[in-house]
């Protein structure tokens, strides 16, 4: 029976090969990192100009550093790349003096020119930075971002010319400086810019590089990429290699705090122009300036950060290797924390939280504390029936927030009747009316839906997450119980959920917002009629006037009163539905030191260290009753 043996041998060989493949593909055992935490979703990008989320922010603030950075406990702005600064008496001019020993992760020196390059790129409409509006406090920055729509005849403009199609996509075309004479409409979405270049008038037509390379421009016109306000008009200038001068539109009390925010990080021009976007962020190419650099990145697995030996503060950075695991399921995250694989997680599944908080003696790795964050729902005021304020009010009055927080949020989140969360000194939150089912029914009947009959089956949109689902379900049941209406729930993954918000493809959509800086403005300016985050379609001229006016108000008391008035309008008209304000749900191992609960739940990793023998309560547990 030789065939028998042959085939059995063949079979065994196949199995052996298979096992070998499996073994080899698993890859070498990774040495364990000094500190491991879980970032609850895969980061969209590590380019600081292109991101807005908290998970992305954690990575960006580890590998990049702006002029300033945040104190780990108080979140006050402290020196970063800038070692000192001066503010003019009128609050409009900020001068920053950069360190001598500031370097990039490849050893090259970091200068004011790098910041200048990065800010221009950040504001460039072609970059399409989502957070660009945060920089619009700089003089003329907003006009720069608006590209062709931000310039008027008489302005100094810059004209960026086209590059060949195969050019690196981060390179700027040749820039000509001129003065705008007039703008002409050329057809749908197309404009011609007539400028005074030197002595003559030249017409420029913006188009893409491909068309510029292959076809002739319209008569008497020259192709270009875009026409923008001359960047020299923007209040961001290089005085010398080590000095930057920033000029603001108006005095902005929270501006220093804003500069520590990750979108204001510098990016390395040489790196970008060599590799193009997004390739420059590959772990083998990327050049950064923060306390850590990105050693490698594996999608949906981890980002490994290693200490940057060129960083000016390297002696105080104690952790050598940090792993940021990207694990979506918070239950799996808790599992890993409990088995000791992970030192810090940012969320706890509610059923587990309930059990963990009841433990006696209290656990040494859990300490929920309130922070400046608000959980609310957008109403799409452009759609029926939500365009009727009575319907919106009815929905708010019929909602039992106490039930939601008590039953579904055992961490201690607080029911909220306002947009701005509690905890900003000197500011009084403005609240909407508390629960009143009878009034809700009356309003709904008045709006034309007696006993909820005929009410359209609108849906509640939320991003996929265990706790959001339960909350949306309970809201559905509460409205059915009190108002007799039937709504549906719908969930989408984070990226497509954001897109649905932008596109206003929703009826009611969940939103969570963490303060970007400790001032009510960070919440309130969301709902300006042209606000980036205002996906409700709601606009109120009085509101706009109050908010914009507040940014010119020098008296801090008066300013806060104006903001309160604005919030009052918001709560009277209810384009949003406040539900609760957050409590942080971090779990941190007792051997992690230097981790503080703070007002924005913003924890930079560079200030942490591990003390394996430490037994006492660590900094994380401060503030517990």
């Amino acid at each position: 029976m030789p065939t028998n043996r042959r085939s059995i041998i063949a079979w065994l060989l196949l199995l052996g090969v298979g096992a070998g493949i499996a073994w080899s593909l698993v890859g070498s055992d990774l040495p364990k990192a000094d500190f491991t935490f879980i970032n609850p979703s895969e980061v969209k990008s590590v380019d600081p100009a292109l991101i807005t989320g908290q998970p992305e922010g954690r990575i960006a603030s580890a590998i990049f550093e702006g002029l300033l950075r945040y104190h780990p406990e108080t979140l006050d702005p402290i020196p970063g790349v800038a070692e000192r600064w001066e503010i003019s008496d009128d609050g409009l001019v900020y001068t920053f003096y950069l360190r001598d020993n500031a370097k990039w992760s490849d050893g090259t020196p970091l200068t004011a020119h790098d910041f200048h390059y990065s800010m221009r790129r950040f504001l460039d409409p072609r970059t399409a930075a989502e957070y660009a509006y945060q920089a619009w406090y700089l003089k003329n920055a907003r006009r720069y971002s608006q590209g062709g729509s931000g310039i008027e005849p008489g302005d100094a403009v810059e004209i960026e010319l086209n590059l060949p199609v195969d050019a690196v996509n981060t390179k700027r075309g040749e820039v000509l400086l001129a003065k705008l004479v007039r703008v002409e409409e050329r057809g749908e979405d197309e404009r011609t810019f007539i400028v005074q270049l030197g002595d003559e008038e030249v017409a420029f037509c913006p188009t893409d590089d491909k068309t510029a390379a292959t076809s002739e421009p319209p008569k008497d016109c020259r192709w270009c990429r875009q026409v923008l306000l001359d960047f020299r008009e923007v209040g961001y200038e290089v005085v010398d290699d080590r000095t930057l001068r920033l000029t603001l539109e108006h005095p902005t009390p929270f501006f220093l705090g804003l500069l520590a925010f990750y979108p204001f990080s510098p990016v390395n021009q040489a790196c970008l122009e060599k590799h193009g976007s997004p390739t420059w962020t590959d772990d083998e190419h990327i050049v950064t300036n923060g306390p850590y650099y990105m050693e490698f990145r594996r999608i949906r697995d981890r980002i490994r950060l290693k200490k940057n030996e060129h960083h000016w503060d390297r002696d105080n950075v104690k952790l050598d290797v940090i792993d940021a695991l990207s694990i979506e399921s918070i239950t799996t995250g808790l599992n890993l924390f409990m088995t000791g694989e992970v030192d810090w997680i940012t969320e706890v599944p509610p059923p587990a939280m309930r059990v963990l908080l009841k433990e006696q003696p209290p656990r040494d790795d859990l300490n929920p504390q309130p922070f400046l964050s608000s959980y609310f729902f957008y109403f799409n005021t452009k759609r029926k029936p939500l365009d009727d304020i009575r319907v919106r009010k009815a929905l708010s009055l019929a909602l039992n927030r106490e039930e939601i927080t008590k039953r579904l949020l055992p961490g201690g989140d607080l029911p909220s009747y306002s947009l701005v969360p509690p905890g900003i000194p000197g500011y009084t939150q403005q609240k909407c009316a508390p629960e009143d089912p009878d009034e809700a029914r009356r309003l709904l009947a008045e709006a034309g839906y007696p006993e909820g009959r005929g009410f359209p089956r609108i849906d509640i949109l939320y991003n996929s997450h265990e706790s959001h689902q339960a909350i949306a379900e309970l809201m559905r049941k509460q409205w059915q119980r009190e108002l007799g209406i039937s709504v549906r729930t719908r969930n989408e993954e984070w990226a497509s959920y954001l897109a649905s918000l932008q596109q206003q493809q929703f009826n009611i959509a969940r939103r969570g917002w963490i303060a970007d800086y400790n001032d009510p403005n960070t919440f309130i300016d969301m709902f300006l009629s042209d606000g980036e985050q205002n996906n409700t379609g709601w606009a109120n001229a009085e509101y706009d006037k109050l908010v914009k006016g507040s940014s010119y108000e020098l008296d801090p008391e008066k300013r806060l009163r104006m903001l309160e008035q604005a919030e009052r309008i918001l709560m009277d008209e209810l384009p949003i539905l406040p539900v609760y304000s957050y409590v942080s749900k971090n779990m941190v191992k007792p051997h992690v030191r230097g981790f503080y609960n703070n007002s924005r739940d913003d924890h930079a990793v560079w200030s942490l260290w591990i003390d394996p023998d430490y037994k006492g309560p660590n900094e994380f547990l401060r503030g517990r009753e």
Partner: protein
Amino acid sequence: MIGFMFRRLLWMAVTLWVVFTISFFLMRSVPGGPFDRERALEPEIKKNIEKRYNLDKPLIQQYFIELGNVCRGDLGYSFRLGDYTVNQVIAEGLPISVALGVLALIFATSLGLIAGVTSAVFRGTWTDVTLMLIATLGIALPNFVIAGICIILFVFKLPIFPAGGWGDFNQLLLPAFCLGAPYAAYVARIARTSMLDVLSQDHIRTARAKGVGPVRVVIVHALRGALLPVVSFLGPAVAGILTGSLVVEQIFAIPGLGSHFVQAALQRDYTLAMGLVLLYTVLLYVMNWIVDLSYAVLDPRVELE
């Protein structure tokens, strides 16, 4: 042989084309373009972007351009993972999923064969009944339930295995087991049936009559015949393991193609999702091909047409 391979390649190309066409038109049937969904852009910028991605051309033209790209291996950029091309994502995830799948297949066949053969040899006893009951349970429960139970038993109650993640070999074992379990069950049942069939045949009786020991009878004489139906089951088993990996990779937080695909589909990351579907088609084809080949090796009576 060459003719066989050539014909197989041709059919694979046809299938890939069908899959590509279906996916392309499904993707484009979604109202609104992919960049409609980002923030409101300056009109010139929006036009620039549209031109760059050929979105201003008629649908048919876009179809052929993309077809050309795919044929050249250019699967484009992932919409949602801004920094990555589809090829990069595949390069990262493929070895992981293959390792997981291969290990799962090994579990499935070896555990299944052992269980099935043992069952057949000890037919009618409690061993037989218990093994077959466990096997049927493996088929009857959804694999995420099996995974959940395994986690409760082997991660929490008896902390043998880590809860998930990727990097060490022992993080691979439990997921591979959960992935292979339903197929081990199928293999066990098939192996048992065919083993019983073979054991009742003449040449086995002859061997026994000649005084060949029972173990030798089973392994040397009977096993090969019993293997054939198992091998023919492997084709569908691989397909099942590929889809099962979608669940298992999510539960155990394994960064393989399965989780990438689920995330891509749910996030409407169409370029990535389509690239992965094409890849899965190729994988299935290759696996079926290997199965056919091993079939030929095992049974010289089968001709490869």
